[in-house]
């Protein structure tokens, strides 16, 4: 039976189809092979380049790959708790490694806030404050960018470009610039994170606005509402839940971002972490990493819960 199917003489048409299929298949295989070859080649070239321009060579330093585990192993697990809550250490030898109580911030004579909690609060506060500033300006800009509200392309184009530039502008540069004008402290970090947030939220916001139902707007237009009235009474109520959801999403990202900016001189927990890793203070490092981990986790969970309540599953699409 099977042999009869295989050996059946094909008609001219069927033979043509078979030939075309073979050609297509061969070409696809060729492209796949070529693509893989190019990818492999690029990968090896990149690896060679990265290794060549690195301070330590990969093969030599590979045994040190998991050194960070050693950086995370204090001599006594209790040390982590002492570092976290600024309790005096029994190993105190006057060095910076064990000077936990020095960082206490006294509120009253006996009540104090441990240093890391204080700095973490600062970092979180930087994130909240700059997300608010960013959301405020993003909110204003986002109504000038969508096609349905702003028919004038000479406004739309520049506003979109402005938001793109704000988004792609390296945060390090903004932080560094403000660091030279203002002295050390949280404000350079606030400026850097806010400016980035304006661009990022502005883009997400205006994409929401572009997809709204325009019927309420038409209604207001019919009764002679001006631009601001139309936007405020017909668009804003529709988009507010989505805006809030994006605000919270951005808040999650900004908590991480403000920790990073802190490490390059913007205050907050990031700087302490960089110092303690650089100086090999294991207990302090673990304490900060745990605290950061817990904070990021808590903020993520809280914002996920709130977003789910506001807009449902729609809030969980990939976005930056």
């Amino acid at each position, binding site marked *: 039976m099977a042999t009869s199917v295989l050996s059946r003489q094909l008609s001219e048409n069927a033979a043509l189809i078979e030939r075309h299929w073979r050609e297509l298949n061969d070409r696809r295989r060729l492209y796949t092979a070529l693509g893989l070859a190019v*990818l492999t080649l*690029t*990968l090896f070239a*990149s*690896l060679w*380049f*990265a*290794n060549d*321009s*690195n*301070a*330590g060579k*990969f093969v030599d*330093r590979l045994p*040190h*790959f*998991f050194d*960070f585990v050693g*950086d995370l192993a204090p001599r006594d697990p209790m040390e982590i708790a002492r570092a976290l809550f600024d309790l005096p250490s029994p190993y105190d030898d006057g060095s910076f490694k064990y000077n936990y109580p020095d960082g206490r911030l006294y509120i009253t004579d006996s009540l104090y806030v441990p240093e890391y909690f204080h700095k973490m609060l600062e970092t979180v*506060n*930087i994130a*909240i*404050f700059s997300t*608010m500033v960013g959301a405020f300006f993003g909110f204003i800009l986002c109504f000038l960018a969508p096609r349905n509200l702003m028919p004038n392309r000479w406004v739309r184009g520049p506003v979109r470009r402005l938001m*793109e*530039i704000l988004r*792609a*502008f*390296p*945060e*390090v*540069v903004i932080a*560094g*610039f403000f*660091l*030279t*004008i*203002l*002295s050390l*402290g*949280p*404000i350079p970090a*606030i400026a850097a994170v806010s400016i980035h947030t304006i661009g990022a939220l502005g883009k997400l916001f205006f994409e929401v606005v572009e997809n709204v139902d325009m019927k309420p707007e038409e209604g207001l237009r019919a009764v002679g509402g001006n631009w601001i009235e139309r936007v405020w009474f017909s668009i804003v109520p529709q988009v507010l839940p989505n805006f809030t959801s994006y605000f919270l999403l951005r808040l999650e990202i900004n908590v*991480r971002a403000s*920790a*990073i*900016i802190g*490490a*390059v001189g913007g205050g907050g927990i990031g700087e302490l*972490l*960089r110092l303690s*890793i*650089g100086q090999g203070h294991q207990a302090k490092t673990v304490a900060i*990493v745990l605290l*950061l*981990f817990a904070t*990021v*986790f808590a903020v993520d969970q809280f914002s996920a819960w709130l977003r789910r309540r506001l807009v449902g599953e729609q809030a969980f699409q*990939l976005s*930056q």
Partner: protein
Amino acid sequence: MIASTKPSALEMEAIASRHAHLLQSSSKKGLKPMLIGVGLVVYLVFSWWFFSIAHVLANANWGIAGTYLADWVSYEIRPEIAIAPDGTMTVSYQRNSPLGKNPDPEWVMLDKQEVTRAVESPAATVQAPKPKASSSFSFMAPNAALGGGDHATDHRQTAAATRTEAIVTRAVVTYDRATRIEVADKLVTTTHAGETLTMKVDGADKVTPQGTLPRWATQKRLGEKVTLSFGFTGWAEIEGNEVSIRNRFFGWANFLFDTNSPFFGKSYGEVAFLILSGDRIDPTRSNLSLALNNILYNAEWQHLDVWTKLLQTIVMAFVGTLFASFIAFPLCFLAARSITPSRVTNQLVKRFFDFLRSVDMFIWALFFTRAFGPGPLAGISAIFFTDTGTLGKLYSEALENIDDKQREGVKSVGAPPIAVQRFGVLPQVLPVFASQALYFWESNIRSATIIGAVGAGGIGLKLWEAIRTNSDWENVAYMVLLILMVVFVFDSISNACRSRLIGRSGH
């Protein structure tokens, strides 16, 4: 004919007045936005205090901010005119002046004289000044000494007892058509915006303005230095013994050739002519390769180094994301409930992903900088660790959302498990996987700039160093421009690829 069912306006009002409670919004509903508003205001006030914003803003050095911002797109040339008590002057320029070793710009006109002074015995009387041609052309003579430190030339034939110095008797600095400063006979005459200010200097430490100061001139105390600001074109500072000129020019100085290059100061036409048909400047190589070499190793702009570092950033993001997707790919099958039925395995792998993701790229970067030393390997590892977590999470979510029908179809014909995954699952998710990897490559180029600043390689560190010097803002602008360009290019490439991938996977 359509009979209107709508009540007339009068009837509407009647209904409204009869059922007023329906139209009133509840007090609770009205209270909520107000509470949120009050909460916001309280928070903002708290933050104002917490960050002591008012204090920081008041103490900020705003004057310098304008200068730094202007430095992004312009450069200053700084002639300093030193005035001796006898009214003679010498002109010097900043070290590494963008004008090269012997600056002689057209906008500084000097009247020069050569004096021969006794230097060996202090008691010897000063020789009478020997007037030389005092036109501004005289100092164009090739042996005229001028500028940075070397304004003294020994005349050996007149024995060691005397020395001939080129001194300046009159200097005219022209900023632009409306602004010029003239210094002669211990008098500084400034013209700006139609006003003229004359100041007397004593060659030591006293400045006396004649008449009232115009708005663009400030003097803190009588006799102290006078600062003149001319807006973007520059400013000047007049002290008793020195006039410091800061003339600002738009653009990036010496972007192609630095002052040590033989091509420095030549117009594009001249450079093109030299490259195409000129004699070899350096006998060992062609002019073209010399020119390219001079551009790449430009001491001021360091083009080659900047480009290499930028390439490092791209490579870091590329390799890190690629490896991350390699590792995340098999793991995500273990994490997806629909593929691996074991709940323990699912949870273990998912928590592992969460751990990698939450520790954050920046903490990994700090750790791996210690392991590998500063450089792109640290950055690659950091991106690799973080993205394995992120991509793993996204991949397993994509796997959990696949259409089961295709899997069942392959299963029903008796295919082994591997074949079920290969033909029933993979075709559905592969475009999504590739698209997400692409997106993260592009987004990691941006993140890699920041982790570079803590030592993880790439352009970040170079950028950070340029910022911290406070004087290389034009280099910062250059690097920012390059980064923006790279981000936009990769953004559009990745968008195009992703829309093709996702578009094709529509079915």
